[in-house]
Each structure stands twice: as structure tokens, then as C-alpha cells.
């Protein structure tokens, strides 16, 4: 056990992967000499050399495209996209090549590529630096998508992602990079919880709250706050966004009968839509109220001084919980329709 920040936990995980498999190579902009703009790869180039930790030219399609070629050659590239908003130039290589080549080659060509993406807001950054693009990738067959929320998971999950023979989008909640916690860096990876399995981060009885990444901490805080109010929230940290561990989510909803999904990404077509749709299909008879989504607005990420009015926070989560529980909430004040959804077009 060592107490590490989330950033350092990923660093430690990368180091272990580099040590244990010499086909693992890290690629990205500024990841070598600088150690990454978030220092996640700090020290790795010095220790493993410029052929294992590769500073690349400034071209995201180039990074992903050469990673595909390296995968053809039997390497396991781990690429860093410097910020969420810079993944789009690589979208074609990810969606048309990385995601599809195993299928297109009838299983002969593996794409064990890990794409690390610092994601989400909450750090007062400039535009294009706070995006939550995960739903694009969750909708793309052939990819796996995960998000870590804490150092212990991050340390394990990055190694699992690298070890996976499938391409993995690995989302890192940048606003939690500096949060410290114990990491079982002495434990065996074989015993670890599989990357695809969700965690019940806090058990509860009244409502199931599903989230991931940077908002898990906020959700846990909301659970504590609600407890004082007599409401018991079960917080599920999804960890895997594609595929979703529906078994865990649905088991919880069958007990609580109520669902709130929370994420920073916009509501329309966000991951919450999938989870609500799937739970509704599978647990219809168990639902005591309409599932609720608490999400970022469907707007481009706003300027820094407005981000607190975009991101779900503790109060908005609790308001969503109140909606799920049929308690007084922001929409119940002037109900226009029995569903409490008052402003239909």
C-alpha cells in the first residue's frame, strides 16, 4: 500500500506495464521530456528510453494511425491525447481503424491500443480543455471505454486496459488528478476486480445513483449529505462505460426501484440515455418512478466562470434524487403535468 495521487497512480501503473511487457510503448505530445502536461508520464522516458516513451509530432491522427501500424507489428501502444478536446482530429483513425480492424481482418489483427484521455471539467480551463466525449466512443462498436475515479482503481485499470487485446479508451478525470489515496501497488493484478465490472461505491436503499469519473466523489458526498436527510443513496461507480456492467446496475435498481444517472457530458444522447433506456427495458416492473438524468447542459463547454452552472454538483445531484423520490424539487414547484416534467415543447 502506498498513498498516491490519481496522476501518480496512473504513472505507477504505466511503469509496471512498461516493465512487464516490452511491447508496451507510450506515445503522445509532450509525454517524454516534459512528462506530460499533467506529469502523468513523469520520469518514464528517462527510465525506459525514447523508444518506449515517444514524443510525437503534433498530430493526433498521426499518433493513432502510427499506433495502428505498431499494433500490426505486435506492439501495445498506449497513446496520450493531451486533452479531451484534442481527440477529434484522431476520430477517423479511432472509429474507422482502431475500432474496426479486428473485425475487418476477421480476428487476425489485434488492436491492443490504449488511448488515455484526461477528460471533463472543473479546473477552470480554456475552451476545448474540458470536454466529455465518452458517449461518442461508447456508441462505437469495437471499442471498450472505461473511466477511473480514484487512485486505487486507476493504478489497476490502466494496467488492465494495456493488457486487454481490445482497444480501450481510458478516461482520466483531470480534476481528480491530485486527489491522494491508498493504492495496492503490491497486490497481484490477477486478483483485481475486472475492468468491466462496476463498483458499488456506497451501498444504499432508496435510490440508485450511477456515475463515473470525476463525479463519483461528488456523488459520494451527495450520499453523505442525503443520509443526514434520511435518504439512503446507493452510489455505483460505473468504471466501464462500454460495455456497461448492467448486472450490477440492474441488481441495484431492482432493490431501490429508483435511478438517477449523473454525468458531465450533455444529456442528449449521453451515456445516461443508454443507462436509463436499458434499465427501463430490463427493470420496468421494478421502477417506482421515472429514471432521472442529471447532466451537463447540451451546450458547448462554457467559459470557466460559468462552468459551475454547467456541471452537475452536489445540489443538482440531490435535486435529481429528490425528483426520483418524488420529494419536493426544482421541477415540482409548478407542476404542469403529472410527470413533473413541466415544460414540454
Amino acid at each position, binding site marked *: 500500500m502506498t498513498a498516491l495521487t490519481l496522476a501518480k497512480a496512473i504513472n505507477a501503473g504505466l511503469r509496471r506495464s512498461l516493465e512487464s511487457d516490452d511491447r508496451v510503448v507510450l506515445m503522445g505530445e509532450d509525454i517524454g521530456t516534459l512528462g506530460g502536461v499533467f506529469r502523468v508520464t513523469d520520469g518514464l522516458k528517462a527510465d525506459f528510453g525514447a523508444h518506449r516513451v515517444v514524443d510525437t*509530432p503534433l498530430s493526433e*491522427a*498521426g499518433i493513432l494511425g502510427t499506433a495502428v*501500424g505498431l499494433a500490426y507489428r505486435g506492439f501495445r*501502444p498506449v497513446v496520450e491525447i493531451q486533452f479531451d478536446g484534442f481527440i477529434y482530429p484522431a476520430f477517423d483513425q479511432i472509429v474507422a481503424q482502431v475500432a474496426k480492424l479486428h473485425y*475487418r481482418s476477421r480476428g487476425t489483427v489485434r488492436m491492443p491500443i490504449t488511448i488515455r484521455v484526461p477528460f471533463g471539467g472543473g479546473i477552470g480551463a480554456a475552451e476545448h480543455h474540458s470536454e466529455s466525449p465518452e458517449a461518442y466512443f461508447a456508441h462505437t462498436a469495437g471499442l471498450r471505454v472505461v473511466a477511473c475515479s480514484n487512485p486505487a482503481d486507476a493504478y489497476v485499470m490502466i494496467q488492465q486496459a494495456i493488457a486487454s487485446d481490445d482497444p480501450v479508451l481510458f478516461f482520466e478525470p483531470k480534476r481528480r488528478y491530485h486527489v491522494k489515496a491508498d493504492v495496492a501497488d503490491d497486490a497481484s493484478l490477477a486478483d483485481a476486480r475486472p475492468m468491466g465490472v462496476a463498483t458499488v461505491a456506497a451501498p444504499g436503499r432508496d435510490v440508485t445513483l450511477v456515475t463515473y469519473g470525476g463525479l463519483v466523489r461528488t456523488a459520494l458526498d451527495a450520499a453523505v449529505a442525503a443520509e443526514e436527510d434520511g435518504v439512503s443513496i446507493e452510489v455505483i461507480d460505473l468504471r466501464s462505460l462500454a460495455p456497461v456492467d448492467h448486472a450490477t446496475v440492474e441488481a441495484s435498481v431492482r432493490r431501490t426501484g429508483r435511478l438517477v444517472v449523473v454525468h458531465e457530458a450533455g444529456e442528449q444522447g449521453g451515456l445516461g440515455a443508454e443507462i436509463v433506456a436499458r434499465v427501463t427495458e430490463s427493470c420496468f416492473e421494478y421502477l417506482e418512478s421515472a429514471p432521472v438524468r442529471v447532466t451537463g447542459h447540451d451546450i458547448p463547454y462554457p467559459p470557466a466562470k460559468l462552468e459551475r452552472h454547467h456541471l452537475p454538483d452536489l445540489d443538482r445531484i440531490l435535486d435529481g434524487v429528490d425528483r426520483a423520490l418524488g420529494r419536493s424539487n426544482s421541477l415540482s414547484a409548478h407542476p404542469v403535468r403529472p410527470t413533473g416534467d413541466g415544460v414540454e415543447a
Partner: protein
Amino acid sequence: MTPPEPAVLTKPRQMLQLIGERGERLADPEFDPWVADVDLDQLAALYRDMAVIRRIDTEATALQRQGELGLWPPLAGQEAAQIGSGRALRDDDFVFTSYREHALAWLRGVEPAELLAVWRGTQASGWNPFEHHLAVPQIIIGAQSLHAVGYAMGLTWDGSDAAAIAYFGDGATSEGDVNEALVFAASFDAPVVFFCQNNQWAISEPVGLQSKQPLARRADGFGMPGVRVDGNDVLAVMAATRFALDRARRGDGPTLIEAVTYRMGPHTTADDPSRYRTDDELGAWRSRDPLARVLSALEAAGHDVEALQTEAGSAADRAAADLRAAITTLPDPEPLTVFDHVYAEPNSHLERQRDRYGRYLAMYGEEEAGR
């Protein structure tokens, strides 16, 4: 065979030719050494290759017209560019093509059925890339150029002296991917050959819309030599490719080759070129036929071209018959294989979906389902 390296061609010359349009052998002090070993028999073998692949191409086009294939992108006119470069490769060089390089597949031992499967639509791809050192064909224009560079970077990290080669068209040079590939290749001294077949057209768009300069001139600005070669001169193509491959093997990095050629047929069997180009243009290029050129050269050198044509013709006949026969070995795939190979590892979501679709098929009966 490692002749002295030609003066680095930072500024591509007009166009490298070793066999002129009337079959005359043109001396080139820089590039002649690269094909010094190619005697008349070998030249005849190159002719045979071209004759066979032309016939395969014609047959496949016919198969498409007869409804046996969904689509076919003919290579007619580009035989010398593909055979000349393909015959320069070593077996362990890795080839990344677009969709038109059937000659490369054939040269590298791909079976007829493997070649046709994807155009018949029975399989996502035909062959195992690692058996032939040949990637699956690429339809996203230019994307494979980056794959070749990545593979080549891996070659150097592995200490191999093999090379990678990326085939793409004139149109592809306008895609960001190809330009980023040039950047990466130069930065990492990647042992890769960029082989651009400038066949004058990107579907209906003339090469002049993509570039006002000869495409080989792009190379210099990216920090590599560019060679402009007559793509209908199989010997010159072979020389240029050997030169580039040798650079790659010796750690001197990438080379861009522009093979100037012509697509004689439609873009694909779905295309109607009469909408955008003239008979005159076609006629002018017909007179530069790459096969006829080698024949003239052989004839001028006293080779028995009649025997060669007969022999090549029957090899081509056999190849065509094999191709046609292969169709029958390509039955429609089993419905549930639609789910195979999406992932390399178990995936709960997909397994659920497969299971559900399996139940659906079971209920409705495979016959009725999915009509």
C-alpha cells in the same frame, strides 16, 4: 546488390524512364545499377506477371458485370506500377495498400477466393495479413499511409532491416493522414516507402485539382527524397522502388515515389468515366500501354515475344479460370458470424445481443429471417 546511392534527389527530375515509349532502353547512370541484374528472362517474367494480373482484373470485372461480385475497382493501366514495385519487395517487407492493388495481393500469394471475398461481400476481408505480410485493403483514403509508418517505426525498434511500403493514389495526397504520415516518417527516419500511383484521376477529379506540382515534389519539404517515375515503365518502377527500399534498409529513412500512370478503366465498376474524361485522353494513354512497352523492349533485344505471349496467355487463362472457379467456394456466410471478431475478448453486451439475435433466428427460422 548495393550500387552507389544516387545523388539525393531533393528536386525530382522530370521523370525517370528506363524503357522509352517505343521500347528503347534509356541509359540512366543513377538508376541503371539498381536493375543491372534484370536480364531478358527476368524482364519477360515481369511481362508475364503483368499479363496475368491484367487478365485477373478483366475477369473480375466480368464477374462483377455478371453479378458475382458487388463491386470491383479495376487496376487496368497500372500493371507496371504495381508489378514493378511489388517485385522489388522482400517477402518480409510489409505492404499497406488501398483497394486497387490486386497485383500486390496476387504477387504475395493471396488465393483467388481470398482476393474476391471482400468484393463479393461474403467476408470483411480475404486473407490473414501476417501470412502474406500484406495488410487488409484500405478504403478510407490515405489512412493506410500512417499504418505503414507505424509499422516501419516498429521495424527499427525491433532492429529489423525489413521495410514497409504504403500504396495510395494521387487523390490521397490531399488527405491530412498522408501528410501526417510524411511528417512522422521523416521525424522517426522510418524505413517506409510511400508509393503514390498517380493515375491522373480521383474518381472524376483530375490530379490538377489536388496539386499543381508533380506530387513527388512534396517530398523535399517533408525532408525526404522524391522520385518521379514513369509508372508505365516496369523497369524504371522497379529501379526506383529498389532504391527506396535500400534507403529504408540502410536506416536512411523514407522515400516518396510518384509513379505516373493512368487508370484505363472506370474508378470502380459502379463508375461511368465517360462523364468526366475524353476518348482522346484515353487513346493517348492507350498508346503508352505498359505491357506493350515491355514487349517492344524484349522484341528489340531479340527475345522471342511470340512464345512469351503464348506462354503468358495460357498462364493468364489459368489464373482467370481459377478466379472464376473460386466464386463457387465463397458461399454466403452464416448469420451469427455477423457477431464474430468485433472484440478479441469476451464482451457482455455483445454476447447478450448475439444471444438475442440467435433466439430471434430460432423463432422465425433462418429462412424467413432477415429477408
